[in-house]
């Protein structure tokens, strides 16, 4: 069984003078939900287009399921929806899926109906695609991507146009897709969503890879650890904590103090304050979010680019 379902080596796509993807080398392991992050225009969709054979690389190579030859064969194990879902407007949702099922080699119609139900389109499958709302189109796109039970699923901004309830449903669906041997490559600019759904991420900016790894590890390496605390006397507490040499910084944030220090020293904070008869009312660790990490690394990359 292949360990990596996607491998790229120096993948580059150039449009005239614009480098959309610049020497990208990334690896995606089997059986994970993998996030592809980057600011608008960073090359996420272009990267997906290259991997799906829709765009021709200017240079570099890539392989799907360990095979760079016979790319069409590999693509038959892939389900994908990139950018906005595009279907035949005069066909119903069910007919659209039926057409694709037919050319992918056929299958029972019940599969299509269960797919339609699974993505929450039950009851609207017989309506023409042109009458669908953006959210419904997105759902049909996900159904299409899952058609034929593919081993690798590409989802490009799958929650675009969905209402909050729909976003939660799709998030749970994506999470469940990554169970077992199936791999999901999710591109999204909703970092909170990615953090909740993905095991690993690749961050690209200006077509270049700037970070890659497990979400938890990336976040752990980023920024300083902080502790948010509320006390019986915030002014005095600030003076006391600022004098401690293992506290890097103490800042006032709304009605609480934000103490920059390793989280494991929380008990020492309470001890130091209690010594001076200042008592802790609330205390909680503040971890760096993926969003903060993302903003930090993309800003650094942007500075480097300029």
């Amino acid at each position, binding site marked *: 069984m292949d360990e990596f379902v996607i491998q790229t080596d120096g993948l580059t796509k150039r449009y005239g003078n614009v480098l959309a993807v610049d020497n990208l080398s990334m690896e995606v392991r089997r059986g994970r939900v993998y996030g592809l992050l980057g600011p608008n225009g960073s090359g996420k969709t272009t990267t997906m287009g290259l991997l799906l054979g*829709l765009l021709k690389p200017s240079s570099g190579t890539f392989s799907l399921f360990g095979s760079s030859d016979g790319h069409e064969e590999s693509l038959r194990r892939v389900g994908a929806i990139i950018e906005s879902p*595009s*279907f035949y407007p005069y066909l119903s949702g069910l007919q659209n899926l*039926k*057409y694709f099922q*037919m*050319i992918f080699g056929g299958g029972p119609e019940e599969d299509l109906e269960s797919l339609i139900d699974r993505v929450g389109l039950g009851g609207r499958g017989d309506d023409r695609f042109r009458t669908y709302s953006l959210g419904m189109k997105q759902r049909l796109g996900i159904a299409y991507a899952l058609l034929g039970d593919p081993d690798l699923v590409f989802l490009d901004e799958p929650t675009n146009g969905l209402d909050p309830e729909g976003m939660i449903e799709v998030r749970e669906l994506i999470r469940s897709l990554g169970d077992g041997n199936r791999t999901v490559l999710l591109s999204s600019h909703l970092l909170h969503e990615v953090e909740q759904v993905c095991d690993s991420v690749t961050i690209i900016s200006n077509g270049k890879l700037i970070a890659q790894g497990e979400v938890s590890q990336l976040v752990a390496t980023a920024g300083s650890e902080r502790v948010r605390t509320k006390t019986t006397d915030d002014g005095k507490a600030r003076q006391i904590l600022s004098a401690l040499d293992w506290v890097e910084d103490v800042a006032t944030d709304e009605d609480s103090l934000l103490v920059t220090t390793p989280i494991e020293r929380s008990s020492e904070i309470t001890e130091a304050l209690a010594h001076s008869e200042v008592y802790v009312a609330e205390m909680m660790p503040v971890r760096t979010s993926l969003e903060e990490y993302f903003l930090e690394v993309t800003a650094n990359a942007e500075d480097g680019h300029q």
Partner: protein
Amino acid sequence: MIAHFLLLIQGEWFKLRRRWLPWVLLAVAILVSQTFLWGFYVVYHVTDGKGTNAFIPDYQYQGETASIDLTCADLLDGRIEERVQSLSEEERLIVKKEVAGWSQECSEYVSEDEGLFLFVMPSSILGSLVLMFMTGLQFLLIMILSASMLGSEYGWGTLRMALSRGMGRWQILSAKLVLCVLVGAGWFVVIALVNSVSSVIAGIIPPDEGVSIIVLADGDTWRSVLSEGAKFFGKAVYATVPYIALSACVVVLTQSTAQGISLSIVAYIAEAMVVPPLLAISERLEGIREGLLSSNVSEWMSFGQTEAQVALQGAEQPDTTQAFFVILAYSVVMVGVSLWLFQRRDVSGARGE
């Protein structure tokens, strides 16, 4: 691989038959075909069985040693040379000059039998279809269908849906081209069937002696006409291939239905109607004319000039074998270019056409 290709064709048909366009184009084709058929029916009856003749009065020439009578039929059937044999060299030149003056009017000549062929079975089964091919309408309709079948995919952005699942670029394009040829053939069959029904109706109202005699034509006549019809059918299907390939080529190049249709039609009209008169300016350019697709399709479909017209207008028509190979060459080149471009180019999202 063949099974996969057949699945793609089946899929294309699944989509196409649910669109309005092929049915609208078929309706236009039937309408035009029926206009020809019933138009000739009306004219035939109005002219009291004389057809739509632009009859030229018989031309009589009284020579020193002989006198001859000539008609349009002599001119169109290439009998002029034979008929003037009895005249002297000088008299022959005079007669030929006179006859040359009729060529335009004679080209509109339709004999009494020809007047019937469009609405009386068995010749009517394909009669109006022949006229549609002569006017080029059938080629225009099939080019519109071909351009739309491919161009819409670019417009809706649906092409990448199939390509991203490894369906294969050349397979997808080839399936569309093959289906387009099959649909064109299907149109011919439907038009022929509608013609048959119309002919029966034309034979019934009002009862016409001349009509019923031909409807009840003997088996040999039917066999002969149907055999010619089958030959025509095969030739017609073959002749549509380069035009389907032409519009596919333009669509792959422009990635647009509108541009695909308009540029294909412009190319067709330019090649068939504008270029030949320009080439006629110089004798040196006559060779180029023989290589034009329209001239060869004309010859292939036997719409070429009669020997008399050739003699009078000086234009040498390509022969049928040459026509076959020229059509094949155009088809292969244009399909090849389409596939090559389609294979190489990026496929982007919906273009919103």
